[in-house]
């Protein structure tokens, strides 16, 4: 366990020179003070989306980057999170905070149900299986009358106690801090996970499945565990998203598009790295929002054209992601490995 001790002693980023630490501190301060520096509603909206997507992309990164399984069905858990809190609140008046927990639990259970039979499959088989299960779940929710079938659900408006009902109608700032908190919690969990025994086993079985198995690592059980963590993270994003937009549309929540976008963000940023998903979200969300402003109309899909081309180029020329480019730069300038 020498490696493990060494890894535990490792810091969040490899021992940085002063200017890098200063930059990090400045970034942190910027994140905390952001809503007061940029005061327009749009800038709040943009950052909320970036934070939520950063969390969602990180959730995908746990399955793909750590355990090496390409999930194309992450939208399932996003939808479960959104539906859990909203159904409990709309039908039984239960606070979305409890719904958040229920959603995480249900998502983790769904991950077990999906993962146990399919995570034994390698490579393309698992990717295609999750793609098909994702579409199937969408079909089921679109026809399930109890949860509003194809027309979906509305989150009932409740103005009495914003914090209890998790909806804020006068300002986006509280949503910003909620999203920041959720993203920070998610990244903290993954940072811890990467340095834990479980994290090391996952990376071992990603890189050398046969060798890992011969060392006595229960491959299937570890992969299911990673899938559960990923599902719970995705579910949190789903609940917050539902509380933010207040409308549940199965067409959008369970769309393959969501599953794909989190994948694109992670790969563009750098899959398997801690900060890659955040970098990907920070690049792709503004790209999407601004292209919509400049070219107008959601139906014109300029953003998806750019996404597609960008991801293709990254895969062709820099499969390890943009973050590795930056890391290389820093390494070269500072001489730190």
């Amino acid at each position, binding site marked *: 366990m020498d490696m493990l001790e060494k890894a535990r002693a490792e810091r969040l980023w490899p021992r940085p020179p002063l200017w890098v630490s200063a930059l990090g501190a400045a970034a942190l301060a910027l994140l905390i003070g952001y809503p007061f520096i940029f005061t327009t509603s749009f800038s709040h909206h943009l950052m909320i989306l970036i934070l939520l997507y950063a969390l969602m992309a990180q959730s995908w990164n746990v399955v*793909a980057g750590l355990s*090496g399984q*390409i999930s194309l069905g992450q939208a399932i858990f996003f939808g479960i999170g959104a539906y859990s809190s909203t159904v409990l609140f709309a039908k039984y008046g239960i606070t979305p905070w409890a719904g958040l927990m229920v959603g995480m639990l249900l998502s983790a259970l769904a991950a077990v149900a999906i993962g146990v*039979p*399919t995570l*034994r*499959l390698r*490579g*393309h*088989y698992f*990717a*295609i*299986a999750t*793609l*098909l*299960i994702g*579409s*199937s779940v969408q*079909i*089921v929710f679109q*026809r399930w009358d109890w949860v509003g079938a194809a027309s979906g659900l509305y989150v009932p408006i409740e103005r009495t106690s914003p914090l209890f009902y998790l909806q804020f109608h006068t300002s986006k700032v509280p949503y910003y801090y909620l999203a920041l908190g959720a993203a920070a919690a998610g990244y903290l969990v993954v940072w811890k996970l990467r340095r834990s025994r479980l994290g090391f086993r996952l990376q071992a079985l990603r890189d050398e499945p046969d060798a890992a198995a011969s060392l006595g690592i229960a491959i299937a059980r570890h992969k299911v565990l990673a899938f559960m963590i990923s599902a719970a993270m995705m579910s949190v994003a789903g609940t917050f998203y539902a509380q933010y937009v207040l409308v549940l549309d199965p067409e959008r929540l369970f769309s*393959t598009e969501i599953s*794909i976008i989190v*994948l*694109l963000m992670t*790969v563009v940023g750098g*899959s398997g790295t801690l900060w890659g998903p955040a970098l990907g979200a920070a690049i792709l969300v503004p790209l999407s929002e601004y292209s919509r402003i400049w070219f107008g109309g959601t*139906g*014109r*899909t*300029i*953003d*998806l*054209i750019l*996404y*597609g*081309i*960008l*991801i*293709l180029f990254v*895969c*062709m*020329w820099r*499969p390890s992601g943009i973050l590795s480019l930056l890391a290389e730069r820093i390494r070269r300038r500072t001489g730190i490995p």
Partner: protein
Amino acid sequence: MSRELILQAVISGLLMGLIYALVAVGLTLIFGLMEIVNFAHGEFLMLAMFTAFWFWALGGLDPMLSLPFVAILLALAGILAHFGIIRRLLKAPMLAQVCGTFGLGVALRAGAQFLWTPDFRTIANPLIAGRVQIGPIFIGQPQLITGGICLLSFAALWWFVTRTETGLGLQATAQDRQAAAVMGIPTERMFALGWAIGLGCVGIAGTMLSTFYYIFPDVGTNFALLAFVAVALGGFGSILGSLLAGVSIGVVESLGGLLVDPSYKTLIVFGLYLAVVIFRPQGLFGRF
């Protein structure tokens, strides 16, 4: 439920299944050759349908007449995709291969939506239309001719792969890239040929489909999903397997729609995929 109704469902499922099979065979051929899954396959089908549509809308050429042109154009697109994109992706890890072809698909689909709007289009008054009656069964004429052309394409493909020298080279490359290269087979050219044939098949399937199906930017998605199922069912890399699997999927889907509920027919097929990959991961039929 009368016997005629079931027979009707089986036959229309069979004819639809032949299209699934022709889409799937391109996918399986490409995978067999270079172990890469083309996640943009459905989008190429969509492009084929739109190409046939524009031949008709702008040039007044019926799909039956533009068939060879569309097939050749798609084959050229395949060669272009191989040399422009895939050759680089082959060197990347699997994750990048999946994401790369996926990204290509996303860009193509969004590009089509940008250029041609998400509207549904159809080709009015195609050369072949109407239906024929055989006993108590009605069969749409376009579907019947489509089925025939799909079968012909399969026969041609089978003959090419097993009876010509180039086809044998293709098989050799699929079995062992290095050994084939040592034997003097130009493997790089074989890869390009695989893409040309694979997308050529998609061109034929798309053109025929455009005579009786809606044409819209998202049309490929569902066909690609079913083609994935067919490829997994038939075994990755098996030509005959994808024919049998495609046809079975068509029949299962059509019967499921009739006996269970039309809105769940895709679910039944997806369930079939899961059952097969879990219990028989190598597919129902062997390679080639």
